């Protein structure tokens, strides 16, 4: 994991430095013409950008390891503070989308597999084709048009944290979480269906039935657990992509989360913010891969890691 994170840090550090956006001009904005050369020099010095690139990189690395993540170029707030304010919103949205994907995907997948070639199967399979091919931002747009613009039932913009105002939080979550969860639900449905169809033909399922177990127990305990490996892979990917996966949806719904902050920071060359977001995303993805491997071993005891 350490070598991978080292490569990620190098990639992001170098790409940010070669990006043709001047962080100083991004900070000043439309008043840039009034900026004198002296002022500019002082600002560059204050931000530490007058040091050589290797020194800047080492200082950044030291900061990461000692918990000093630097300050945003844009608003001078410590990056850790900025992320602490936004992370709960992103996690709340990701969690809601995750639950929608998991519940809808597994239920539809089980029903489609058990009632193969029925109307239910056709309905679920068609739905999954739609969910996989449709752009999530377009689905969000259609949901907004229907439920906000036309019917006026749900709000489009903003976010409330669940522990501050549960009702408002739930109402604000419905549209973005549905848009974000659709693709996951479709993929999980497809994997659950195919894995369950394969497992249901195994000898141990016949044995479970032969010893008189009720069908629900055979399906939900014996078959489903053993057909969860491909589903766990999808869940691992989704979990890993929590920070980077909701960029567009957060932007559309003016969601005060990390994804929206990332786009904002990228377009304004806010090095400290974007570098930390990418590093945190990388750690999340790598940790999710690790948990996926552990889940494999739990679900299928034949899998062992040396």
């Amino acid at each position, binding site marked *: 994991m350490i070598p991978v994170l080292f490569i990620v840090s190098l990639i992001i550090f170098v790409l940010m430095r070669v990006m043709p956006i001047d962080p100083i001009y991004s900070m000043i904005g439309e008043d840039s013409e009034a900026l004198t050369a002296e002022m500019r020099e002082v600002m560059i010095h204050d931000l530490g950008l007058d040091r050589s690139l290797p020194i800047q990189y080492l200082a950044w690395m030291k900061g990461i390891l000692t918990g000093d993540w630097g300050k945003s170029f844009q608003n001078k707030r410590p990056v850790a503070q900025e992320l602490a304010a936004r992370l709960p919103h992103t996690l709340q949205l990701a969690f809601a989308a995750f639950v929608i994907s998991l519940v809808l995907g597994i239920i539809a997948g089980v029903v489609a597999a058990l009632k193969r070639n029925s109307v239910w199967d056709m309905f679920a399979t068609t739905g999954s084709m739609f969910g996989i091919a449709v*752009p999530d931002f377009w689905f969000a747009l259609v949901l907004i048009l229907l439920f906000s613009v036309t019917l006026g039932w749900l709000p489009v913009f903003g976010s409330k944290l669940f522990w501050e105002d549960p009702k408002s939080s739930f109402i604000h979550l419905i549209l973005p979480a549905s848009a974000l969860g659709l693709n996951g639900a479709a993929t999980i449905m497809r994997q659950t269906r195919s894995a369950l169809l394969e497992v249901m033909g195994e000898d141990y399922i016949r044995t479970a039935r032969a010893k008189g177990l009720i069908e629900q127990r055979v399906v939900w305990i014996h078959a489903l657990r053993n057909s969860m490996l491909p589903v766990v892979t999808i869940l691992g990917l989704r979990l890993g992509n929590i920070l980077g996966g909701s*960029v567009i949806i957060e932007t559309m719904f003016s969601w005060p989360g990390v994804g929206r902050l990332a786009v904002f920071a990228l377009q304004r060359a806010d090095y400290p913010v974007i570098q930390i977001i990418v590093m945190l995303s990388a750690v999340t993805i790598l940790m999710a891969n690790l948990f996926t491997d552990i889940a494999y071993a739990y679900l299928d005891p034949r899998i062992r890691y040396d």
Partner: protein
Amino acid sequence: MAAPEYQEQATQSLRSRVSGSLASGTVHQLLGHRLSVIGLSYLGVVIFIAVFAGVISPGEPNAIDPINALESPSLSHPLGLDHNGRDQLTRLFYGARISLFVGLMSVAIAVAVGVPLGIVAAYAGGWVDHGIMRAIDAMIAIPGLLFAILLLLVLRGGVMTVSIAIGINLFTTQARLVRSQALSVKEREYFNAARAIGAPPWRMLVFHLTPNSIQPVIVQATLGMGFAILGEASLGFIGVGVPPPTATWGSMLNLAFRNMNSAPWLSFAPGIAIFLLVLAFNFVGDGLRDALDPRLRGKI
């Protein structure tokens, strides 16, 4: 004729016959797959529209008519006009060019970079394999869309830059896929036999390892087209994709989102076009996978 020359000719002939029958078998299987035929037919229609956009479009994609801006669908403008009075149907037709080009080009880049990397990693093993795979792990650990936006901000530019940004996101899958296949080919008897008779490394790579490892690439490349089209649309929607005024489906949706209260009809056609094109590639990809690996038929 000398014996080695005769052997070489016989091998070539056998190879072409086997690959020929495999290709025709695959095409036959593909044409027997109902959804693939639907997907292929739809792709044919979109390719026709993209190629002949200049002939079949009712107007020019960038011609403006501010006086009639945001006009609702009518007989003269079946999909209506956008905020600058540009004909939506014309822009939809021209947008197909961008989607198809970016899809094809980014997959080509992914294959051109991913396949050699995967093959070399598997063949060389040791620190070369380790180095390549860790670099690929690092690329995968960076969120795809953020990485693409960053690359676009670094490289600037137009359609080709967008293709590169998406292609770089896609090549990691190709490289991993090819590497795992090549590792299994390396253990086969014919590969060891070729090594035993003293075939040089380039010959092992070009004639033995690569042709026997790229089968999964074909399926992944087709499915990758759908991913690339979605990626291009996403970048266009955020406003960092192909620069205006070029018509792209993603940027059309961006404008539709901004005008959703006054002109909701602008939202439908580009979204449906993206959805159907991605669906068509997924259908063809599924059909190809079934044709190339009959064990999976009907299971996924």
